[in-house]
């Protein structure tokens, strides 16, 4: 709600990758709204804590609902929100610290429930908002304010983590490719089930990886990011693992489970199957009458 808020006191650094993600989300929401003739207020963005989560306050144009909660708990909030209101379109914006460190325990349960929400993780490989501490995706041996000897923990491989947790729809993206990211967000929102878009979103202040991601042929630097090969079959889980374990960063569709029944549909079907219906309070008391 940046345009209408005169006292807002947060902004991103110039060149922050999150600007591209914000534009992609704004356009994707407008596109969805137009395609489905659905009001923008039917969407809600659940934001984590960190630079990434502050995106919810910087959204321009038509405004969705937002909830800016506590550190690491975007997924649990979305679990209650979407389960209570399956009619809403729920989007999550989070970062590598919020989602993969303090919040990592929540990925598995939502993936296994197949909660019908879309997660956009902005990975800058560092805790930016708190000024440059190591995150799970910071590389081994990198010196940060909390790793004076160089980072001692192995770098996490997010794509592998998601696949192992059971994420059924997974894409990898980069914040500079706004149009492609917008398309992924639209597709992820349309997917009936749990979807994750992991976005490389560099921090120009503490971990500027633009050059490493793009590479520099003149200086002989091979780009870290590369397009997912055309022959990759995203419905093939083993092949998706191969991409995730490849060492470099594939950009594109990584995995899409062939069957996807979201949690709220599972519940509806189970109720139909078992014939569970609501009794009135009077009926429930009457069943206990002595």
């Amino acid at each position: 709600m940046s345009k209408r808020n005169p006292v807002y006191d947060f902004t991103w650094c110039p060149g922050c990758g999150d600007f591209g993600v914000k534009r992609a989300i704004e356009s994707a929401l407008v596109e969805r709204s137009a395609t489905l003739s659905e009001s923008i207020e039917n969407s809600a963005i659940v934001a984590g804590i960190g630079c990434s989560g502050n995106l919810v306050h910087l959204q321009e144009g038509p405004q969705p609902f937002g909830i800016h909660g506590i550190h690491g708990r975007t997924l649990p909030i979305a679990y209650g929100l979407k389960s209570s209101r399956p009619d809403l379109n729920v989007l999550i914006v989070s970062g590598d610290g919020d989602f993969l460190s303090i919040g990592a325990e929540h990925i598995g349960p939502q993936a296994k429930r197949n909660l019908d929400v879309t997660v956009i993780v902005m990975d800058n490989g560092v805790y930016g908002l708190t000024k440059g501490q190591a995150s799970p995706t910071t590389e081994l041996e990198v010196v940060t304010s909390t790793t004076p000897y160089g980072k001692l923990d192995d770098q996490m491989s997010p794509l592998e983590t998601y696949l192992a947790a059971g994420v059924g729809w997974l894409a990898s993206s980069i914040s500079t490719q706004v149009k492609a990211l917008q398309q992924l967000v639209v597709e992820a929102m349309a997917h009936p089930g749990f979807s994750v878009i992991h976005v490389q979103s560099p921090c120009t202040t503490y971990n500027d990886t633009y050059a490493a991601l793009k590479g520099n042929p003149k200086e002989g630097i091979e780009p870290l990011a590369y397009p997912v090969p055309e022959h990759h079959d995203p419905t093939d889980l083993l092949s998706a693992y191969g991409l995730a374990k490849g060492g470099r960063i594939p950009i594109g569709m990584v995995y899409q489970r062939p069957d996807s029944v979201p949690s709220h549909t599972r519940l509806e079907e189970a109720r139909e199957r078992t014939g569970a219906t609501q009794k009135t309070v009077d009926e429930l008391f009457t069943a206990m009458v002595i």
Partner: protein
Amino acid sequence: MAPLSAPAKAASMSKNLVVRFAGEGGQGVVGGSEILAAAAAQVGYHVLTFSTFPSQIKGGPAWGQARISTDEILESGDELDVLVALNRYAYDHNVEELSENGVVVYNSEEFEVDEGGRAIGLPADQMARDSGNPRAANMVVIGAVAQLADFPLAYLETFVTKRFTRGRPGDAKIIEGNIAALHMGAEEAAKTGFSLEALDAAVPSPDERVLIKGFEAAGLGAIAAGLDSFIGYPISPATTMLTYMEENLHGDGKFVGQSSSEIESIAALVGAGFSGRKAMTSTAGPGLSLMGEGLGLAWMAEIPLVVVDVQRGGPATGLPTKTEQSDLLMAINPGHGDMSVPVIAPGTIEEAFWGTIEAVNWSERYQGPVIMLSEASIAERQQDIVKPDLSQVRAENRVVADGSTGNERYIGDGVAPFPVPGGPGAYIANGSEHDEQGDTTHLPEVHVTQTHRRFKKLELLANGSFEAEQTGASVAIMPWGGSKGSTRGAYLELTAGGEDLAWYYTMYLNPLPSKLLDELRGKNLVIVPELNYLGQLSQVLRAQGVNAHSVTQYTGLPFKVQDLRDRLAEEIRTRSGKLATV
């Protein structure tokens, strides 16, 4: 809240029967007491059960107690008329609570009671096998107890038939075996010639009565209040409410789920409450500890939700299956920063029903989190109560934004219209300090304004009802929660003995009813019986200008009436000797 009627005088054997089944976890001692209570309730007696058992699937010392009476009862009784001891440990550790004329029924396959006296040895397991149902040892014992109390076996037969008619192929055989076991037990007991004074005949109540447990009453309260979403994580002694909701809340727009942790539960409730729905969880102390930050978010972002905390012994893992009242301070201040979470603590089964409705109503009215502070002894208690008059149920709904407030959510000097996703008024529900539309801002004047708004809303809750008797007395007794029953018994004995004492009670502990606080401030002394070490409610009362002092107990068990009576008398003497006479 109407004052409770007097409990039957203890030791009047003809009106009261207290039976304790003691043994190991897994031997059905809790089930035994509940079956006896249920059968007695069916013929018109008033019943109340209490149980205590270890935190393991099988083994460890456990007992279940049933009190059966011709009068209304509020606690499970001090002295035992019958002690059923299934092993030596159970006998040794419970026999001193036997009344003068009490009888022991023991498992003679396990041990022998050598001092003679009023003891009946039954080879219950062998007798159960002989009955054709090896699992009917409990029934052998219940048959013996019924014989001792001159309780017609026909009542029990009817009950057994009803309980085991489950539409399964083996029903008839199970029923037959259980009935045979009842008779075998009764015949053995008859041979001894022992008897208790016969219970007076039950006087069937003109009202429709239900036999209900505390967690069921709370669950029904939640449903009656219009609850939409219930999300919980298994934890003793709160799991029973989760399973009750799983089994009983269905239908369009309703959701019940098992979460992966209490951290997930509370965050999910925030999401559910934000979505416009009425949301609740049940947990115990360790879970409430984990919910601290999420409750702060609900307070800060002004999201209605209810947490039912079924208190157990703490801290840490503590005493998972025992009863205690030691979470009050945490319930009021469950997380960091300035907040004061509304707390309602039921003291009876009826209050578990009405209090849960009120907890949901409070959360909707002031738009924030509410804690329903139950406890093991209330949640697991089984009791007969008059079926609540459902025409009195009033379910409140939050004031919803209609678009006229634009994108401004956090406005005015108190409760503001709540924008529901899908409708007008998109805003950010923000746990960071925020401006009117929920955008983060940490300017000093904004924090001051919003903090005032959040606390101002509590004034909407300060008009709760309370019980007050003999209000002219300068010394008052004021229990809370599950200590209400025992305290009532002790209070009535003290006043009958000539003590001039006021009685106050409310289930609305935060904010306390403002009129009640005014009255309490005028007392020379307010004594608070409570099951914790710190004396938590008296701390809360002292902080609000009341000269309150606690009488505490922290054994994992409820107060006994006689003990409490003596301790209250002592407290009155030592703290205000010149004011009170004994």
